[in-house]
């Protein structure tokens, strides 16, 4: 960054800070600035007040993430707020609570998305939220003892897990004697839930009267794993396994961006182009799977559409395998660059990639013939699973789910990283707000990604041979400054994938929090499906394109 621009940014930042101080006033007990945003410490009793003012007066309409953590002397909840119109305009609200009585006001009445986030904070860290409508465990079984990310948790203690709700799903007592409704479990082993999601539904005839997604069947402690690994090498393999639908590089980028921001590492331009190339290939593969499985969900297409999308995924996976050496779990990014240069002979790689791009338009046309012009498909998708833009924002939806509802929000453009700024491409938005819009949005994004890949290939082909620097000079042991905190997000296949890292001066993070797009997107499912038929629930679930590895982490 040049010094002039830096001065401008600082002046802007000061202006913003003054404005924020004006809004929060003397409710701010202290400042606790993070690397990415100004931070204000507020009293646990003022949370709702402050957040309402920030939302209504200052325009922070996106509660991106809620991080909970334990220090030696206190618990802390951090609300990471952003604006949908400008995600670079961020603020963190830090709410400390005492160790003996960790009770803090709930933010749920202000941002609906805080509902699930606070339940997770309660589950894993043990902070209680006053005024929360439904403070239960969300990821771990109800009968779990202790809060695993709190300091005094003992992993060695035995636990008991129940199976009660599955005792006999056909038992007549699932029919409510007081009314005509019937209780129905969907999942956790069900072909349409895209993994191990459990949806508890209450049906009135065939209409959904009430719905509650029950998650945590794939909660494999990703945050704990990352907190036990060293920054330099041991964390990078895990992001591949969050969103495992071949979007590995997009996830790795989330971690890479956060740590590079925290440790102040400048990535060489050549490496950024390779990263952009790989990431967009991943996005294509991921959207192809979303399309294929969605066709499977809505009209049981195990033959044409599904097979065609997998044919195309195989090609992309072959390209990615040439680039990274693995089909799915790439582990290709390094802090400060990528692991190795393009495969030799480079011409062959370029040729294969270009072949794929040349054939893609015809394939997309074929998909449109098969799917979007299909009457059954349209009947199933148009005007089902409606998600209004305001509701989408309230639930913190991002990615194709938000863009299908007309929310023009894409971090690649709004909070640029990598090489996206210098490339020609468009953000796809659709105003339909229904399942159809979300699917179309993904299909068009595939075309946009192809544009980006093509430009990256052009750039890489012409890149001077003596300037191919793939990694910055990064110390063998990374130790960011003690108490440095940052929250950084990238646009993954499913939406905003954010990482919060707090350093304690050692080579391992003191707190590593993952803000997963699927988690927030899925929380809007009830809003989308209530009052609709149960087959529309399956369609909505498919069009949300969730990956349980990322929902549960």
């Amino acid at each position, binding site marked *: 960054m040049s010094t002039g621009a830096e001065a401008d940014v600082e002046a802007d930042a000061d202006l913003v800070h003054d404005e924020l101080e004006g809004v929060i006033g003397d409710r701010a007990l202290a400042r606790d600035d993070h690397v990415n945003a100004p931070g204000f410490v507020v009293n646990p009793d003022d949370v709702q007040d402050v957040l309402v003012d920030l939302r209504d007066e200052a325009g922070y309409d996106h509660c991106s993430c809620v991080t909970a953590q334990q220090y030696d002397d206190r618990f802390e909840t951090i609300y990471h707020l952003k604006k949908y119109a400008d995600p670079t305009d961020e603020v963190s609200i830090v709410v400390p609570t005492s160790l003996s009585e960790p009770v803090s006001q709930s933010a749920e009445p202000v941002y609906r998305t805080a509902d699930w986030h606070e339940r997770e904070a309660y589950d894993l860290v043990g902070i209680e939220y006053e005024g929360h409508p439904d403070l239960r465990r969300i990821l*771990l*079984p*109800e*009968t*779990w*003892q202790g809060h*695993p990310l709190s300091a005094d*948790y003992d*992993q*060695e*203690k*035995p*636990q*008991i*897990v*129940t*199976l*009660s709700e*599955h*005792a006999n799903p056909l038992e007549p007592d699932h029919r409510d004697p007081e009314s005509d409704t019937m209780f129905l479990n969907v999942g*956790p*082993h*069900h*072909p349409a839930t*895209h*993994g*191990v999601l459990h949806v508890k539904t209450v049906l009135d005839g065939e209409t959904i009267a009430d719905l509650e997604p029950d998650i*945590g*069947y*794939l*909660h*494999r*402690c*990703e945050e*704990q*794993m990352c907190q*036990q690994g060293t920054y330099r090498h041991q964390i990078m*393999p*895990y992001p591949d*396994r969050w969103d*495992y*639908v*071949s979007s590995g590089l997009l996830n790795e980028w989330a971690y890479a961006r956060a740590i590079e921001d925290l440790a102040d590492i400048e990535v060489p331009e050549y490496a950024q182009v390779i990263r952009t190339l790989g990431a967009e290939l991943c996005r294509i593969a991921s959207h192809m*799977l979303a399309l294929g499985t969605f066709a499977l969900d809505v009209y049981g297409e195990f033959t044409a559409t*599904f*097979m*065609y999308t*997998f*044919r195309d*995924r*195989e090609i992309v996976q072959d390209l990615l395998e040439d680039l990274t050496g693995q*089909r*799915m*779990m790439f582990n290709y990014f390094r802090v400060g660059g990528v692991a190795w240069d393009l495969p030799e002979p480079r011409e062959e790689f370029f040729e294969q990639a270009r072949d794929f791009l040349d054939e893609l338009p015809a394939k997309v046309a074929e998909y449109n013939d098969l799917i979007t012009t299909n009457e059954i498909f349209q009947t199933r998708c148009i005007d089902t699973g409606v998600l209004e833009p305001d509701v989408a924002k309230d639930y913190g939806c991002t990615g194709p789910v938000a863009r299908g509802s007309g929310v023009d929000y894409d971090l690649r453009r709004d909070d640029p990283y990598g090489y996206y700024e210098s490339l020609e491409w468009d953000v796809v938005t659709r105003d339909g707000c229904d399942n159809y819009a979300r699917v179309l949005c993904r299909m068009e994004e595939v075309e946009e990604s192809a544009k980006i890949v093509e430009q990256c290939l052009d750039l890489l082909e012409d890149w001077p041979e003596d300037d191919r620097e793939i990694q910055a000079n990064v110390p063998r042991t990374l130790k960011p400054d003690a108490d440095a905190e940052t929250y950084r997000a990238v646009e993954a296949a499913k939406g905003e994938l954010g990482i919060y890292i707090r350093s304690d001066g050692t080579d391992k993070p003191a707190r590593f929090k993952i803000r997963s797009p699927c988690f927030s997107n899925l929380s809007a499912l009830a809003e989308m499906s209530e009052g609709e038929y149960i087959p529309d629930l399956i369609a909505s679930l498919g069009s949300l394109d969730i990956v*349980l*590895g990322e929902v549960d982490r």
Partner: protein
Amino acid sequence: MSSDDPRQTIRDSTAPSTDTRDARMGEGVDDRFNSKLREAFGTSPFILTKFDEFMNWVRGNSMFMLQFGIACCSIEMIHTYAIKHDVDRYGAGVPRASPRQADVMIVPGTIVSKFGPRMKRVYDQMPEPKFVVGMGSCTISGGPFQEGYNVVKGAEEIIPIDIHVPGCPPRPEALIYGILKLQERIKNGESSPVVVKPYELEEFGDLPEDELVQKLASEIDEDDLVMRYNWADSP
């Protein structure tokens, strides 16, 4: 006709019926019996084998897989079913959505405490004889997540597994190899011995009374099925 009077086919020559059959079959060798079965069992159109062996052979060549997606490996499992790898070539390509119609279960991913009892229930619902392929490192040892407070260290803690396919995730080729190995084992009539696993579903009332059970007594009914999860005690 009394029983001391031999039937005509025994008393008389069988030539007329043989001639009739030959006339119907026409010249040359009849290829009606040249089926896959005949190739497998030799030149005679009749199979002389033990019934068990025949059943094992049939079972191995017509495996109905359970459509069971858990984690990352399930994506590679889908690729194995789909175009290019096409596991249907080996007679194992029709995933069944219901465990009651399936006889092979591929466990594709990490088992966590909350999912353990559900997986056990799904396995119990499959009809005998049933076989299990453990796919990926997580089903062997917990894989990269072994240290996690919530992770079961290997699916074999809960259900018996016939074939382990290592990898994170294994490539589709590796899974196909595992499936072929399983076919071979089934054809030979082998299967993993069913032993009592450390993780069992049992009624809450049957658990030995310890501190934890007493604490949870108000929350869980006596006859609710529960599974004990013990991270430290599993190897």
